[in-house]
């Protein structure tokens, strides 16, 4: 296969593979907590909110990572501030803040006439990953995985029963912002691979797929990471072979895996459910 030969032969493809596998893993892990906390929209928001930071970082000539984390976290705090200090609900607040940040980012990119290719930021171009980008992604990945490992217990209880967590003295709000920071870092680390617009899919789709396959959070986290990594490899293959945008192919691979689980999951699968419902009907005494 040309893909495997390519990996052995081309340095850029090795970097692309390493980066996208790491992105698949960390998006999968963080995504579990995002969907269980009902924060899918927040994931979308943060990913869009990094755009102005990316633009400014390019203009200043620093690595885009720092600018992106800065505006991402700032937007997360802004969202919390608006919803906690007015009658505006959280999802409305998210809608206001992230579109504002994204719009600002579009203008900044135009005004600063930076050399950044907007198309690549929006949709990803994993085949153009530079060594520094790869190392940042790997470093972020390690940091995120270690954080989740250390605070697994706290993340579990604040997701499942925040009231109990608060009663026994956990800083629930601080943990929320900690998770938002991790989310921002994951988003930024994924920029090159899947791009701003589609990051949310990598956060949600593999986690949702794993959610259909298990009843235990610990298993779900590992499954989600594996599904994310698989989607990345499959997507990269199609991107390389057919010269398509890597973000799009990776996301569609994840979507395909989701629908397989949706139809055939042993416990939750629609197909088995329909079949067992029919069986029950057939066996029911008349």
């Amino acid at each position, binding site marked *: 296969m040309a893909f495997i030969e390519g990996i052995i032969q081309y340095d850029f493809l090795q970097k692309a593979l390493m980066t996208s596998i790491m992105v698949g893993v960390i998006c999968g892990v963080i995504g579990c907590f995002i969907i*269980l906390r009902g924060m899918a929209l927040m994931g979308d928001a943060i990913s869009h909110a990094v755009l102005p930071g990316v633009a400014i970082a390019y203009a200043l000539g620093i690595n885009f990572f720092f600018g992106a984390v800065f505006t991402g976290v700032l937007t997360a705090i802004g969202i919390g501030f608006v919803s906690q200090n007015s009658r505006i609900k959280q999802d409305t607040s998210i809608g206001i803040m992230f579109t504002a940040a994204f719009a600002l980012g579009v203008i900044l990119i135009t005004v600063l006439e930076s050399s950044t290719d907007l198309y690549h930021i929006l949709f990803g171009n994993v085949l153009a990953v530079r060594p520094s980008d790869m190392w940042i992604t790997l470093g972020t990945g390690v940091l995120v995985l270690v954080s989740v490992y*250390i605070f*697994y*217990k*706290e993340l*579990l*209880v604040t*997701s*499942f*029963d925040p*009231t*109990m967590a*608060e*009663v*026994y*003295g956990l800083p629930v709000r601080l943990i929320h912002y900690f998770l938002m920071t991790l989310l921002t870092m994951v988003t930024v680390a994924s920029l090159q691979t899947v791009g701003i617009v589609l990051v949310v899919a990598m956060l949600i789709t593999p986690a949702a797929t794993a*959610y259909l396959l*298990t*009843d*235990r*959070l610990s*298993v*779900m986290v590992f499954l989600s990471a594996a599904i994310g990594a698989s989607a990345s490899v499959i997507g990269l293959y199609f991107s390389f072979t057919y010269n398509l945008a890597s973000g799009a192919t990776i996301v569609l691979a994840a979507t395909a895996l989701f629908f397989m689980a949706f139809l055939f999951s042993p416990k939750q699968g629609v197909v088995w459910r329909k079949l067992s419902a029919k069986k029950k009907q057939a066996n029911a005494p008349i």
Partner: protein
Amino acid sequence: MVSALVLKNVHVSYHGKPAIQEIDLRVEQGNILGIIGPNGAGKSTLLKALLNLVPIDKGSIEILGSTLKENRKKIAYVPQRSEFDWDFPIHVLDTVLIGTYPNLGLFKRPKKKEKDWAYACLEQVGMEKFADRQIGELSGGQQQRVFLARALAQNADLFFLDEPFVGIDVSSEETIIHLLKELKDHGKTVVVIHHDLSKANDYFDQLLLLNKQVIHFGNPQEVLRPEIILKAYERELAFLHEVGVG
């Protein structure tokens, strides 16, 4: 021995509207206290104020002789069943295991010792056969028993239960009340928000009849008298008259 709860002139409001006012209360350790009253009487608000989940406008709350902050780990709270996401990917035993978290502290993970203890608590509520089930697969009564097991796993001195008997089967209700009485015999204090006046007499050592203020506080025989109940439920009765009942 210090009192379990001492409340002095406690006021709580939501968005400027008073929810509970002038609550004075002293509960000694080793009692089961029932909090009863009509809908909107502020029962849950009072419980939240006790747990420091809502700020109090005025007054003071003393728990086991000091503040809640110093006694957090001696408190177990069982929320209403409606507050949970029952699709959450967690098994029964892992749910009970969460009860060991407060005493574990940061960075430490539950080990075999904690798991054995969680299993023992599960046995106490008669749910050990369901240890591997996802929590959403249980009936309402079984779910309530699992959350009581989690509270037991916390090794607390004070137990707060919000409407534990709503929508559960008779045998679960019996198991739970039996366990609560056992806790009391071990000197623990139990506070229960309760809906059903009919069984209040058997279940509780003390009753707090609440309707924004303390209508009456005392032993059940004293509180469960028609003229006193009437005082708390006046508005409900007025409504019945309006719609032409009674």
